[in-house]
C-alpha cells in the first residue's frame, strides 16, 4: 500500500516537472500577445476549465458521501436519536444549498466567460432580490435555531432523580479514573490537596461519604439508566468525549463540570449489530496486513471508549478509557466486586 503511494507520489512529481517544463515553453513570448492579460482565448479556455472543475467538485462530493459517510459512528444513548435527526436535517439542508450555489458559481463562471464584443449588463441593485435572499435564510435559520435550542436544553439540563447514577470522571495526564458513589449514593468530598499515596483522586479521608466510594479504571454503565457525570481534572484541561453517546464536556481544573446521558445499547448489542460486525471485520482485515502489530494485537473487538479531546500534553493521543455498557444485573455484580475507598486505604495502612 505504502509502496504504491510512494510510486504514485513520485509519478505525480514527474508529471509536475514535465508540466513545468511545458509551461516554461508556453510562457516564452512566441505569440504576439504577451500582455499577460487574459485574452479571448484564455477566457474560453479558463471558462471551460470551470466546467471541468465542477465535474471534479461534484464527483468529490459524491465520492465522499458514498464512500466516507459510513464512518459516522452509530449512536448509543437516549438523546443520540434526536441529535442525529437534527444533524441530518442540518446536513441535508446545507448540502441542498451547497449543490445549488456551487453550480451557480461555476456555471456562471463558464457561461459568462468573456467574449469579444460581449457586453456586460449594468445591474447594480435590486431591493426585491436582496430582500428575498435575506429573508429566506432568516426563516430557515430561525427554525434551525429553535429546534437546536430545544434539543440543547433537553440534553444539558439533567434532572437528578432517585434512579440517576452519579459518576465522577477524573482526568489527569494521561489517563482517566471513574468514581462511583457507593451505597450512600453520595460522592465524598475531594480536592487535589488530599492526594497522597494510594489516595490518587484526593478524597477527604475524614469524610464518611468518601469511605464507600469506588474508584475504577474502567467505566461500567447499566443500560437504560440515566447517568450524570461530574468531571474533575487534577492538572490541565482535558475533554471527556464519548463519541457513541453524542456527549462531550471539558474537564477543568479548579471546577466541576457535568454532563448526563442514558446509554441505550449494551456493548454486547452494538458488537453484534450489523454495522459493527461489518466494520470490525474490515478493521481486522486491515490489522492482519499491518506488519507493525504484534500477533496479539491483530484481532480487535469493539469496545466503547472515552477519549481526551482537548490538547493536554505529549500523550494526549493515547488518553482513553474503556466503557462497558451492560445489563443492570451485570453492572451490580461488577460493582460489588470492586474495592471501596475505605478498603483501599485500610489495606495500604497494613
Amino acid at each position, binding site marked *: 500500500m505504502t509502496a504504491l503511494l510512494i510510486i504514485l507520489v513520485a509519478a505525480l512529481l514527474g508529471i509536475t516537472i514535465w508540466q513545468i517544463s511545458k509551461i516554461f515553453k508556453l510562457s516564452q513570448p512566441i505569440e504576439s500577445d504577451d500582455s*499577460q492579460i487574459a485574452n479571448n482565448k484564455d477566457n474560453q479556455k479558463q471558462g471551460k476549465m470551470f466546467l471541468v472543475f465542477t465535474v471534479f467538485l461534484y464527483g468529490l462530493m459524491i465520492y465522499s458521501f458514498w464512500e466516507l459517510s459510513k464512518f459516522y459512528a452509530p449512536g448509543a444513548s437516549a438523546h443520540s436519536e434526536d441529535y442525529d435527526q437534527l444533524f441530518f436535517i442540518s446536513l441535508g439542508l446545507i448540502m441542498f444549498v451547497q449543490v445549488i450555489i456551487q453550480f451557480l458559481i461555476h456555471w456562471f463562471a463558464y457561461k459568462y466567460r468573456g467574449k469579444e464584443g460581449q457586453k456586460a449588463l449594468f445591474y447594480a441593485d435590486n431591493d426585491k432580490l436582496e430582500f428575498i435572499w435575506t429573508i429566506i435564510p432568516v426563516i430557515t435559520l430561525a427554525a434551525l435555531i429553535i429546534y437546536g435550542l430545544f434539543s440543547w436544553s433537553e440534553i444539558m439540563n439533567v434532572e437528578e432523580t432517585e434512579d440517576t447514577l452519579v459518576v465522577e470522571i477524573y482526568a489527569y495526564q494521561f489517563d482517566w479514573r471513574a468514581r462511583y458513589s457507593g451505597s450512600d449514593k453520595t460522592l465524598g468530598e475531594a480536592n487535589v490537596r488530599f492526594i497522597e499515596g494510594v489516595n490518587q483522586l484526593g478524597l477527604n479521608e475524614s469524610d464518611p461519604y468518601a469511605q464507600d466510594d469506588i474508584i475504577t479504571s474502567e467505566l461500567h454503565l447499566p443500560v437504560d439508566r440515566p447517568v450524570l457525570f461530574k468531571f474533575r481534572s487534577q492538572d490541565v484541561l482535558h475533554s471527556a468525549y464519548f463519541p457513541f453517546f453524542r456527549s462531550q464536556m471539558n474537564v477543568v481544573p479548579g471546577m466541576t463540570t457535568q454532563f448526563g446521558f442514558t446509554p441505550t445499547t449494551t456493548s454486547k448489542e452494538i458488537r453484534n449489530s450489523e454495522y459493527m460486525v461489518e466494520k470490525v471485520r474490515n478493521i481486522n482485515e486491515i490489522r492482519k496486513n499491518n506488519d507493525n502489530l504484534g500477533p496479539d494485537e491483530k484481532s480487535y473487538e469493539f469496545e466503547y471508549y472515552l477519549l481526551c479531546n482537548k490538547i493536554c500534553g505529549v500523550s*494526549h493521543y493515547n488518553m482513553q478509557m474503556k466503557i462497558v455498557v451492560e445489563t443492570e444485573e451485570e453492572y451490580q455484580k461488577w460493582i460489588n466486586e470492586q474495592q471501596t475507598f475505605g478498603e483501599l486505604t485500610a489495606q495500604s495502612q497494613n
Partner: protein
Amino acid sequence: MSVAAQPLANDHAHEEGHHEPTFIEKYIFSTDHKMIAKQYLITGLIMGFIGIAMSMLMRLQLAWPNETFWIYEVLLGKFGEDGVMDPSIYLALSTIHGTIMIFYVLTAGLSGTFSNLLIPLQIGARDMASGFMNMLSYWLFAISCVVIVSSFFVEAGPASSGWTVYPPLSALPQAIGGSGLGMTLWLVAITIFVASSLLGSLNYIVTVLNLRTQGMTMTRLPLTIWAFFVTAIIGVVSFPVLLAAGLLLLMDRSFGTSFFLSDIYIQGEVLSYQGGSPVLYEHLFWFLGHPEVYIVLLPALGITSEIIATNSRKPIFGYRAMIASILAIAFLSTVVWGHHMFVSGMNPFLGSVFTFTTLLIAIPSGVKAFNYITTLWKGNLQLNPGMLFSIGLVSTFVTGGLTGIILGDSTLDINVHDTYFVIAHFHLVMGISALYGLFAGIYHWFPKMFGRMMNKNLGYVHFWITAIGAYGIFFPMHFIGMAGLPRRYYKFTEFPYFDDLADTNILISVFAFITAGAQLFFVYNFIHSIFYGKKAERNPWRSTTLEWTTPVEHIHGNWPGEIPKVYRWSYDYSKMNKEDTDYIIPGQDYVPQNVPIQENEEEMNE
C-alpha cells in the same frame, strides 16, 4: 524631506530640493506606504512558506505514523531523531503552524500588505496619516516574526499547547516542555505583534476618515477600503483583549498569580495556585479569537469584491448591502465568541445565546455570497488569475461557511467539537478563502506594486492545482471528523477503531503535498516577475479606481501633479448612456472615478 512630514492635502507636494533617498531610506526604514506594503508582503510570504512547510510535516506524520522519514531529522533535529517524529514536536508544529498562518500570514501578510498599498492609493491620499507609525508597525511585525521563529531553537521546543494556548497547559512547564522558554517567546512575540497591529490599524482608520480626496465620500469608497477600514476597527477593539489575556497568563507563569489556575497537582506536588479559572482565559482569548476570523476574512472579501467587479466588467451587485453586511459581520463577530466554548463548562444558557448570535452571522455572509454570484451573472468575465482566485474564494467561502451552521449549533457542536470536522470547516472558510484572497490580490495588484506583470499561464496552473487540491484535502476531512477523529492527535493507531480511516488520511496527505507543491509555481512566478516580468501599463485591468491613475513608476506622494478629484463611485463598469446606444465613454466599458459625470448619463447611487 519626507512626504509624511508634509500636509497631505497639499496638492503641490513636490517642491524642489527633494534629495534622492538612500538605499536604507528607500528599502529598509522606508516611510512610503507602497514600500511598507511590499515589506509586509514579502515577510508574510516567507512566514507562509514556513507555516505551510510545518503542515506538510504534520500531514506526513498523520498519513504514515509508523514510518520513519529522514526529513524529520533534517528539519527537526533532536525532535526527529532516527526519522521518528517526537510527539511533543507534533504539538509544537500544530501550535506554531496555527499561530503563523493566522497572525503572521493572514493578518499581517494580507491586511498589512493591501491596507498599506491600497488605502492611500484608492482614497486619493499622498501617504498614510503617519508614515513613521506605519514604519514602526512593520518593524515591530518583523521583530515579532524573528521571535516566533527563534522559539524553534530553544532547548525544550516552542510553545506546544495549541494556537489558543489554553492554561494550565500553557502555564506549566511541568505539563509540557514547550510551556517553558518556548511559551515565553510566544507571549513576547504576540505582545509585539499586537502593538504592531494596533499601530497599523489606528493609522488605517485615521487615514480613511481624514485623508480622502475631494469628492470621495464614504459611499463612493471601493469595497476594499470599506473592508480594510472595518477590519482595522475590529482589530482595535479586540486585539487589546488578547494582550490582556497574554499579560495575565504571563503573570500566572512568572509571578505566581492565579488568574487562570486553581487546584493543580502535577508531577507529585500540589501547586499553590487557588481561585483562578481557565474558562476565564477562554473567554478573553476568544473575544479576540473570533473577531480574528473576520480580521482575516474581511480584507479577502474586500479584495475579491473589487476584483470580481473589475473582471466581470459589471458593478458589484448591491454595493450598499455589501457595506451593510461588512458592518453587520463586524458587529456580530464581537458577540459570538462563546461558540468556541459550548462544552467548556460554561452555563448552558450562555450556549443558547451564542448559538443565536452565531447563526445570525450566516445572514450577512449569505447576502455577500449571493451578491457575488449576481455580480458574475450576465457579466463579461475576464478570467485573469486574480479573477480565478476570487471565484475560488466565493466557492470555498460558501462550502466552509455552510458547515458553520452545524458547528454554530450548540447541540450539534457537542459531538463534532475539536474533531477534524472543525479543522475542515475553518481551513476552508478562513484559511483557504483568505489565502485565495491574498493570491487574488497579489496577481491583481502586482503591476501596481512592482511595475511588472506576473505570468498568467503559471498563474492558471497555480490556481487549478490549488483549487483541486484544497477541496481534495478538506472535503473528505469533514467525514473523518464525523467519525469522531480528534484534532491534535500525534497518531491514531492507539485506537483500533480508527484503523479504517487511515486510507482517507493518506488521500488527504497526498492532496496536501500536491497542493503545497503547486505553490512553487507561484514562488517562481512571483520572484521571476519582479525582475523579468513584462513591463506593466498604467491600467492593465481597465479599472475605475484611483490607484490606476498613478504612474507605473513609484514616486513619493503617488501623483506627480494634483491629487485627482472624485466624481463618481468606483463601479461604473459597462454603464450605458441615456439613449442606451453606447457606453458613456464611447468604446470604453469603464469610467474611472476621476471622470466627471457626463451629460448623457444618469447618476447612480447618490
